[in-house]
């Protein structure tokens, strides 16, 4: 299929320029929301267009754009997508529309800057997923912090300054070591193209050091225990839109980084560090699950649940070598990575939806405290049913997208080691416990507090947002085949690459 239009560049720069344009408008101008929404929708349509023209049977990079950017260092403006990055790009464009809708009437302070920041952020995030040059990737990776820093800092809650500076410095800490690792790789290979880095010959010590440098960058982003502490703060203080973007997309960048950089560039080190990585993932899944259980703040609870669910993603990625060595079959490893990828996409929908639900409650009562609610089902029946679906999905109910990813990962891990699979599966119970317990305390029971009685049910705008998300959750849950088919060739070739030791 021939497709000449530079669609990836368009998806990156159109929202960035559009966002800058909107941010410079007069704040009283009434059109900014419409303009922002149309930019986001155009971007979403182009990502769907990319999906239509995407060749599902090829593991190669598609829609490749290649220009020389900084010739002295062989840095190129190199973009392209495969089955791993395209779903994440579509998730990004999709979520941005929801976020802009969610901020429609709620943001009264500097709305032009709010909309503008989200659009710029969208473009940069697509850039991270589409960049195939390590320098370009790094530029997008860090530039992403700037709009998010402003979003949390300007429109956040009480403690926003602390949260946003913590978020910024924490993420920067991780990525700086990645910078050193990338520069080192450049010194070894003489190019910045990620695909050439995949083939770099490295000895074990180099691999281990590079792995650790990458690990810090991506572990902070995912976030993995014990570098997760920025996440609850950032989530709690961020405005609803910020939390949604953080949970739905930014956390995925860590996972994406693992399979785009860590695993293929330093496969032997990844294999060497399998056990520590699995242990860290299990701690995230189990321990953080318990932490989530005792939260009294709804957003914090969902934030911890995100960490716990992202644990499945890292578990899926890093059991690859273990599964292979115990079954001698790379196909099972493919299944694990696919499960982790599905888990990323599905978690994007579910956590986004849950944060939006909490945001809608917060817009009405201005509290996120679980104890300030109770019996919400009575005044808000539609809301209650939507949240029910998302809570169930979060708990991994079969038929929802939450089930597919976790099931695939557990299935794979089972082949590696029974007890790890047992521990991981245990959290399906734990996840159900904290999600449903929160749901019970917020939604069910008698209405005790006066303000809750007067809550208005979802407006049509909110209803629309949640219906679309509910549709996606069910779609991926009931019919994940198209998604998995799209990823399959790319993940297959990735695993094939992993099977060749560099030593």
């Amino acid at each position, binding site marked *: 299929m021939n497709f000449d239009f530079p669609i990836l560049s368009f998806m990156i720069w159109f929202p960035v320029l559009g966002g800058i344009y909107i941010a410079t408008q007069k704040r009283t101008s009434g059109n900014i929301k419409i303009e922002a929404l149309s930019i986001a929708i155009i971007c979403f349509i182009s990502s769907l267009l990319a999906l239509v023209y995407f060749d599902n049977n090829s593991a190669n990079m598609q829609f490749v754009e290649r220009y020389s950017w900084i010739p002295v260092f062989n840095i190129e403006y190199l973009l392209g997508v495969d089955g791993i990055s395209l779903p994440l790009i579509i998730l990004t464009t999709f979520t941005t529309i929801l976020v802009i809708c969610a901020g429609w009437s709620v943001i009264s302070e500097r709305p032009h800057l709010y909309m503008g920041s989200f659009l710029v952020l969208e473009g940069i995030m697509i850039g991270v997923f589409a960049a195939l040059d390590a320098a370009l990737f790094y*530029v997008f990776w860090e530039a992403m912090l700037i709009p998010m820093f402003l979003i949390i800092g300007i429109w956040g809650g009480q403690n926003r300054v602390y949260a946003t500076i913590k978020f910024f410095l924490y993420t920067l800490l991780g990525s700086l070591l990645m910078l050193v690792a990338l520069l080192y790789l450049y010194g070894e290979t003489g190019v910045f193209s990620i695909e050439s880095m995949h083939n770099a010959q490295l000895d074990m010590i180099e691999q281990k050091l590079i792995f650790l440098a990458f690990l810090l960058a991506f572990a902070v982003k995912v976030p993995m225990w014990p570098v997760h502490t920025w996440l609850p703060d950032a989530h709690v203080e961020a405005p609803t839109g910020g939390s949604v973007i953080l949970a739905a997309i930014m956390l995925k960048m860590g996972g994406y980084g693992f399979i785009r950089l860590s695993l293929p560039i330093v496969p032997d080190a990844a294999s060497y560090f399998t056990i520590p990585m699995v242990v860290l993932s299990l701690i995230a899944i189990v321990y953080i699950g318990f932490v989530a259980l005792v939260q009294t703040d709804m957003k914090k609870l969902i934030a911890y649940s995100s960490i716990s669910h992202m644990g499945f993603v890292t578990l899926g990625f890093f059991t690859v070598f273990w599964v292979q060595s115990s079954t001698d079959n790379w196909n099972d490893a493919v299944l694990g990575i696919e499960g982790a990828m599905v888990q990323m996409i599905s978690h994007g929908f579910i956590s986004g939806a849950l944060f939006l639900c909490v945001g809608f409650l917060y817009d009405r009562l201005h509290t996120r405290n679980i104890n300030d609610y109770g019996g919400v089902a009575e005044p808000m029946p539609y809301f209650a049913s939507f949240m029910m679906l998302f809570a169930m999905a979060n708990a991994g109910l079969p038929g929802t997208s939450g089930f597919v990813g976790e099931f695939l990962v557990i299935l794979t891990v089972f082949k590696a080691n029974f007890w790890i699979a047992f521990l991981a599966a245990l959290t399906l119970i734990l996840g159900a416990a904290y999600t449903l317990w929160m749901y019970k305390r917020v939604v069910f029971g008698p209405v005790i507090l006066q303000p809750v009685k007067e809550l208005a049910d979802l407006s049509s705008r909110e209803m629309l947002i949640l219906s679309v998300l509910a549709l996606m959750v069910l779609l991926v849950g009931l019919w994940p085949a198209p998604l998995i088919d799209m990823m399959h060739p790319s993940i297959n070739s990735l695993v094939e690459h992993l099977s060749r030791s560099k030593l």
Partner: protein
Amino acid sequence: MNLVDDILIILPEITLVSLTCIVLLVDVARKNITLTCCVAILALLATLGQLFAFFPKEPNLVFFETFISDPVGSYLKIFVCVSSIVALIYGHHAYQKYKTNSSEFFLLALFAVIGMLFLISASNLLTVYLGLELLSLSLYAMVAMDKNSNLAAEAAMKYFVLGALASGVLLFGMSMLYGASGSLALESIGTNASVGDGKEVVQIFGLVFILVAIGFKLGVVPFHMWVPDVYQGARTPVTLFLSAAPKIAAFAMAFRLLATGLADFSKDWILMLIVLAVSSLALGNIVAIAQINYKRMLAYSTIAHMGFLVIGLVSASSGGYAASIFYVSVYSLMGMAAFAALILLPNGEAASIDRFKGLAKNNPLFSFFILILMFSMAGIPPFAGFWAKWFVLKEVIATGYLWLAVFAVFCSLIGAFYYLRIIKFMYFDEPNKDNSDSVSNSAASVLFNLNCLTILLLGLFPGLLMAFCTRMILISGF
């Protein structure tokens, strides 16, 4: 080479000297800062034009090998002239705002520029010293110009005494090198020693003294004591001038002395530079966090930046020199813009960082540009400051000092905090009562916008300048 050719090569300097005399006369006749400023800028523009017109294609030694004209030198001179023009325009705005008739500022700046041009082109210890003294004396006078301020007097005193000490140390070092090598030409001061010879010890001692003087002029730890006081005590336009062009000249001095003169001793000075770089990065970034005075904060940030600059020299390779030149060019742009922001702030004259509170409410564009500037200083992409750091780090990793690169990135992480704090003040805080004015439109504010846009554009398209720096270094024979 005959005399006419020699004179053609030194023509930009000659032009600047004669035009400075005219500016002096104009200033005597009419005490008007606008007029003096315009004439001074014209003088610099004329020099700049000639620098472009006579851009050398290869190194040329003239006037009995005391003066070298090579592509690197001309590139640095062009940057010195451009940043001085920018600094003079900002300075003019500031003095108009203060309603002080300090037209000497422009004259002293021109004399300093003459000193810098000679320093950059020096290829003989004597020319180095002469250029440096012309530069330093003008700067001492500039700092002392604010007659009514105790802080300025203290700063000038401190600057002068320590500066004179550094000059003395430099002379001492030079005399040792001369004694050991029997030559004043930079080409030969380092070459005469044979290993194990008594002369080598003398030369290493000379090298140490010269490095102390370089460290003082660059303002790197442990020779940084004057930087915060002078930056704080001098009036903002003076600090602005001080933070840009003289840093380029000081870098040129370091570069000429170390890379040309003492290249054979590189394994000795690399170790010393590492110590300077590591301590500057650590101290500059950590102490800057505690500052509530904006100028003092920037002074410590300058110390940290100079530490990064020195890391480029540590590579002692053509790539490392190119990285340093790129770094110093970008830094001079950022440093000037940072002080210009203080000049342009609408409320009052104090240098407290509180003045940035709530700025974004009434001055969205101005604060957006300061945001670009601060992120660039912190080294966040896609701004020029990021590529400057990138370039230096790449070279130092290629040389094999991986730990130094890791240390440097951790220091810049610490440094990010205090830049973020300015952004926090602008965007997240409510304005004080008297912070509600907006920035008035003036030539300086337009220039500030351009200055910051340049930082953004250099961040998006750094390739051209990088390629240029690399080529200059190569054809100059390093």
